[in-house]
């Protein structure tokens, strides 16, 4: 079975669409608060020097998210 694509796999410069945020508790609410609801288009704009966290352009703001948290956010490829 092919593993589901998550925000973790998104390289700098790539754009994806959020499919599902699979966290629970306070981090889930925080991610939703910053606008990560289903269907939101997100662009990876860079990585920290250590490779983690990564920075994403979400609804006009740049937000850094750790890879552990990215892995629980499943995404669709955004065509184009």
């Amino acid at each position, binding site marked *: 079975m092919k593993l589901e694509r998550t925000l973790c796999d998104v390289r700098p410069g790539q754009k994806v669409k959020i499919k599902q945020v699979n966290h629970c508790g306070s981090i889930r609410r*925080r991610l*939703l608060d910053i606008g990560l609801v289903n269907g939101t288009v997100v662009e990876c*704009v*860079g990585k*920290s020097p250590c490779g*983690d966290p990564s920075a994403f352009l979400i*609804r006009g703001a740049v937000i*850094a998210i*750790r890879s552990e948290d990215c892995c629980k956010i499943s995404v669709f490829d955004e065509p184009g």
Partner: protein
Amino acid sequence: MGLTSNSTGRGAVDRGIDIAKSGSSARIIALAGNPNVGKSTVFNALTGMNQHTGNWAGKTVANAQGTFATQQEQYILVDLPGTYSLMAHSAEEEAARNFICFGDADAVAVLCDATCLERNLNLVLQTLEITDRVIVCVNLMDEAERKGISLNLSAISERLGVPVVGISARKKKSIAKLTAQMDKMMSGQTCTKPMKIRYTKGIEEAIALLEPVVAEEFPGLLKPRWISLKLLEGDEQLIREIEKNIGYPVFCSQQVFEALERAKSLLYENGITSDNFKDNVVASLVLAAEEICMDTVVSEKSDYNAADRRADRILTGKWVGYPLMILLLLGIFWLTIVGANYPSQLLSAGLFRLGDFLREIFASLGAPEWLNGLIVDGAYKVLAWVVSVMLPPMAIFFPLFTLLEDSGYLPRVAYNLDKPFKRCCACGKQALTMAMGFGCNAAGVVGCRIIDSPRERLIAILTNNFVPCNGRFPMILNIITIFFLGTACGGFSSILSALILTGFILLGIAMTFAVSKLLSKTILKGVPSSFTLELPPYRRPQFGKVIVRSIFDRTLFVLGRAAAVAAPTGLLIWILANVTVGDLSILRHITDFLDPFGRLLGLDGVILAAFILGIPANEIIIPIIIMTYLCEGSLLEMESLTQLHELLTANGWTIITAINVILFSLFHWPCSTTLMTIKKESGSLKWTFAAFIIPTIVGMGLCFLVNLIGSLFV
């Protein structure tokens, strides 16, 4: 990192939001908004209170309030903590929401960022659900224009049903639009019809069932629709607050209880569980915001923040990110050392000449010798030292650091350092609290509120003291200058001492990591929690304002505080040194007692006594040391660092002593204000004691080691 009389020292101990109405007629305006939208800039522009604006989340650590007046009204402006939402997920959100709900504000001004309005509307919409009296203030219009984003504010206002004003807070004139709107609202010229968020069918049906019952049971409390929503959500925190206000349990009312039960089963029938209820609500809010911004916010250039991304590629780049951070630190230190050297000498020469003059006046007035000693040798001399030694480095370091802060670079430091912090099971935002610690450790400890996880917050609080605050920074700088720079002020030796200083600071940072890791593995066990950090756009610092503000707000304030402690301590030291018990002065008794222990650490009794007496303010440690040496030896004229070097070596200081004093000043107990703040923030004596003992053990251990190794070679 607002270092003002309100945010450092005793002021750093937060007192919650208490509003002291100056006159009964004054109107209260709550200022809400996301982090990084310029809330403090607006606050300062309106109230003229000198509260510094930081460019990162959670800057408003203590709730500030100020007053201002228009021709029509008197206002009290309350600066609420910056939040993304009012769902009360964090202490800050809870405080902001409670104030909007129960703070009796006459209006809430929600400040938004024009460059990402859509995200900001989430907070606006949530505020509209609580109250009708909302003014939406869209800030950074100039920046949006520069980025080619055009906003149709009147259309947005129509959709939201409340007034919307566009301003550029950095230009003072545009703020008048906001105050004019406040006046209009106060005089009743503006009527608002806030839009209603449409939730999914199931939620709407449940609200429709519950709302009339709530309206009847709690008349005039808050909007019944919103209370219903929160009851359905099961927001216990809000229920507690409501109960505090109405004075009896909410579910005392049988009708409310029954209606809620029925509404909940209705939700269940529609497939909405308590788990996905909040998701539904948030998604509706986000989609509503998206709808409002559709065709009202138009961005002409798709790559409007390309410059920021280019800067990020360098400043957070894989190879250059870390070296640049260290180089920046080094550069700031170098400029401080080079710039402070000469003015410092000039100041001390001048002030000590004034001291001689004072002595002559005292003598000519026929004052007794003890009075002369008490005032001039005691109080005045310590004061003069504090001023001449501390003022120049602070007057250079603070503006430089503030420029860095204003530019938006500091969140990038947190971003760069998050991985190492995560390795230590801590949070990258700890880097921001450390940066605040450079200003004042007490402010740094309060700043730890930006860290969400209680465990990680406690780690940040306990290790904040490893960053030297402005009280200790000049001391470290001076000793380095005296013992490593020598008397020459050539280009190379100043670079060398900047390197040494950077080395010590890096040691402090390394110790922060080590102790954080140790704490995570022992008494504060746990895994790193989640982390989101906003990287705000880079902004050109406002040079003029930064310099004026950092000199008046920080430098003079910190100096004032140091001086206030220094003069009485000078008096005390003089008395201790001149009142004898038996053959020796009291001071001598104390230092002799501490001496063997001090020697063990490569220090001496005098230094140790100075560190103990310096608990109220670390600024006075070096003056105490000098005073004590001077009292016991012949009275020297301390006009330059060269003479200070002579005095210290005459009292047995070696390079090992100098290293140990620097180490001990970097790692020892926090000052009394910081301890009080830790007690307040952690709410426990146990953790306050831990904050006291951990750096002390580290410092003593290191000094002991260095002394041991040093004695093998010397």
